[in-house]
């Protein structure tokens, strides 16, 4: 408390900024993964399950191997497997991707809790953070500027995806498949394969998001590790209009909202601060209402997406 007093009320925005960066990383990875999947014309609601399984797998492998990065790799692999499974089921006729997504979410959570029991006690190595606050004397500023390597990776990934959708054959292929199955077939693409691979890649990113949860912040494995980030990220993609760069800003916004509660708590607001823990959920609802319009269709929505058809 005494150190907070040094910069007074400025501690709140600073804590929110630091928190935004810290809390946004899983949002960022899951939403980029979902963005990739949805751009190919398929929706994967199972990313919440993938996130939790990724958290468990990442933690377990990091503990067993002693390397946090091996954990991240394992989480990505596990996520890709979940994505492949989702994509494989969805290629059959008459299968609804939303229903499968919900089933996959429950499956991922169930498997994670089952295999994760032995890893609740042990302590796995953390992911490294890079300190960007070395120039400052202020401990809070230094704390806020402790930025995890995965966050930087995510920022790079958002820029990369944006470029990929615009200027690579793979990116254009994904957009064609997402916008019109018929047009894709007419130019000789295989929509099912493109969607399968996009869903797998999206799952891998969600898995990495999970590894961040268990290996950095909060930094341990337990069954309550995710508070719905996987699901909120789906809403976030809609809010970000399927644009990876907007996904980055939206993830930071959601992260900031998530950090509001702890930040207020840290400056000594003791009553009602827990209401602010609900900020991300209120924000999700509010933004979706604000972003909707009774007159206009969602702009930028992939044409083949089952929620916007």
């Amino acid at each position, binding site marked *: 408390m005494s150190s907070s007093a040094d910069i007074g009320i400025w501690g709140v925005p600073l804590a929110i900024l630091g928190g935004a960066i810290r809390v946004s990383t899983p949002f960022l990875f899951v939403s980029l993964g979902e963005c990739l999947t949805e751009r190919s014309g398929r929706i994967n609601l199972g990313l919440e399950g993938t996130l939790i399984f990724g958290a468990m797998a990442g933690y377990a492998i990091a503990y067993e191997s002693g390397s946090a990065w091996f954990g991240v790799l394992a989480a990505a692999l596990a996520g890709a497997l979940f994505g492949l499974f989702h994509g494989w089921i969805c290629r059959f006729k008459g299968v609804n991707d939303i229903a499968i997504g919900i089933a996959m979410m429950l499956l991922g959570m169930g498997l994670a809790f089952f295999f994760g029991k032995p890893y609740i006690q042990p302590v796995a190595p953390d992911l490294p953070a890079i300190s960007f606050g070395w120039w400052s004397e202020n401990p809070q500023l230094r704390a806020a500027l402790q930025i995890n390597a995965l966050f930087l990776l995510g920022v790079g990934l958002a820029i990369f995806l944006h470029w990929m959708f*615009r*200027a*690579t054959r793979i990116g*254009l292929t994904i957009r064609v498949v997402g916008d019109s199955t018929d047009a894709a077939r007419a130019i000789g693409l295989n929509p099912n394969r493109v969607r399968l691979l996009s869903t797998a890649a999206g799952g891998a990113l969600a898995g990495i998001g999970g590894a961040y949860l268990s290996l950095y912040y909060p930094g341990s494995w337990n069954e309550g590790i995710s508070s719905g980030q996987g699901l909120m990220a789906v809403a976030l993609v809609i809010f970000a209009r399927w644009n990876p760069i907007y996904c980055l800003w939206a993830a930071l916004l959601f992260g900031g909202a998530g950090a509001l509660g702890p930040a207020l708590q840290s400056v000594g607001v003791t009553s009602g601060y827990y209401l602010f823990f609900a900020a991300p959920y209120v924000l999700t609802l509010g933004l979706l209402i604000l972003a909707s319009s009774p007159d206009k269709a969602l702009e930028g929505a992939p044409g083949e997406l089952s929620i916007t058809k």
Partner: protein
Amino acid sequence: MSAAPSVLAPPKAAIGIEAVGMSMRFGDFTALDHVTLKIRPGSFHALLGENGAGKSTLVKCMMGFYHASDGGLLIDGREALIRDPVDAQRLGLGMVYQHFTLVPSLTGAENLLISRADAPAVISWRKERAALEAFLRKMPFSAPLDRPVSRLSAGEKQKLEILKQLYLGSRFLILDEPTSVLTPGEADEVLGHVRALCQAGEISVLMITHKFREVSQFADDVSVLRKGKLTGSGPAADLSHADMAQMMMGAQLPPSETARTAHNGDVVLSLRAAKAPDRSGLGQIEIAQLDLRAGEILGIAGVSGNGQTELMDMLTGQRKLNAGQIQVHGRDYGATRREARALKIRALPEEPLQNACAPRMSVAENLAFRDFDQIPDGRPRLWKNSREMARRAVELISAYQIKTTSPHSPIAALSGGNVQRAALARELSGDVDLLLIANPCFGLDFAAVAAIRARLLAARNEGVAILLISEDLDEILELADRILVMSEGKIAFETSAENADTAEIGAYMAGHA
């Protein structure tokens, strides 16, 4: 003759195509019966036929979508084996579909590039743009490359489709009713360019069409299909429109025009300073004044995308007005189901299968949409009366000559003309004061067009006020008593049908006057 090895490099000039004794059987049904068709290199060949005459089957066999049960294809005199559309593309055969196959959210440039089989893994847009612009400079016409295709007009899309085929190196183009979405001006422009490309020896063209005018004006040769058989073929210059109609329809000729009876009814529909945002949200639709009287057909002409769709949306309550009012019989009209019922207003938007029908529900159910929920005296009905619905459906099906296997088959199984007939049967049954209708004959064949136009005239003669929004100027000139031209969201011009001058209307449509 043994199959010749396929040509490896795409051809450099127009190629000649010959279908020899081509037959296609689906089970017991013969869709195509020993059709032999020769398209000379560099010629513009028209293929006429009613819906279901086998035109699509023939071109699908040529393009490798279907494998012909019998017969084969010669390319420049050599037998060619086409297993799928990819083979066809490699041999220089390309097809422009009636429904656009461009990807709506991609820009023109992106669409062209991704359709290429050898699209680079990493695209250097600067280099590709330069290459595309160099390609466009060699073409007689151009299309915008920077806007997403969803924001292009129908004419621009059609031009882009054709450019795409040329960009891919096709030397034989099949155009499936290329002008059905274009205005007369756009159609003439596009077909003129296509004809110029043929004459330059760049491409040969086979065009599926219903429009005799286009055949006489642009085609070198014409072939006519009827019920899967070739009923006539020859130079287009040698055939009159009556000859072509005879070949298309057999002995039966289209019904003659219904006589008009004079009316001078009361104003039914009136719009005053009605404003609403347009589809893009950037522009504004503004109808300063529009009056429609009973027993009158008011035609709204205009180039596609000049606010006609929005006007229909405004009148059917799907687009909120910012200002002004819509009145029917002097009362404000908000287009709710209750108001429409009380004021006897019916509406039929364009493409009724998507916009005015539930595709998977049965013909009988679709026909009952207007009154399934009320008993004849107007009180609400609790239980649906299937027997009554089926009885009404049978009546309407025979009265409007809707071809369906049964009243209980899904309406999506019907051909376009029959869906349009069914929707019109529903909208014109019962007591009608005002009919709002958009592009009623879009994509329909000759017989269906004649039948629907006769229905509209008959309704007019009975005193129905009809607002006819159409992108087909010929249709407006044939049906309307009074003509308004819409341009950039406003009424630009008004004329009575007797004094209508096509050139003048065309100038206002193009926004030049």
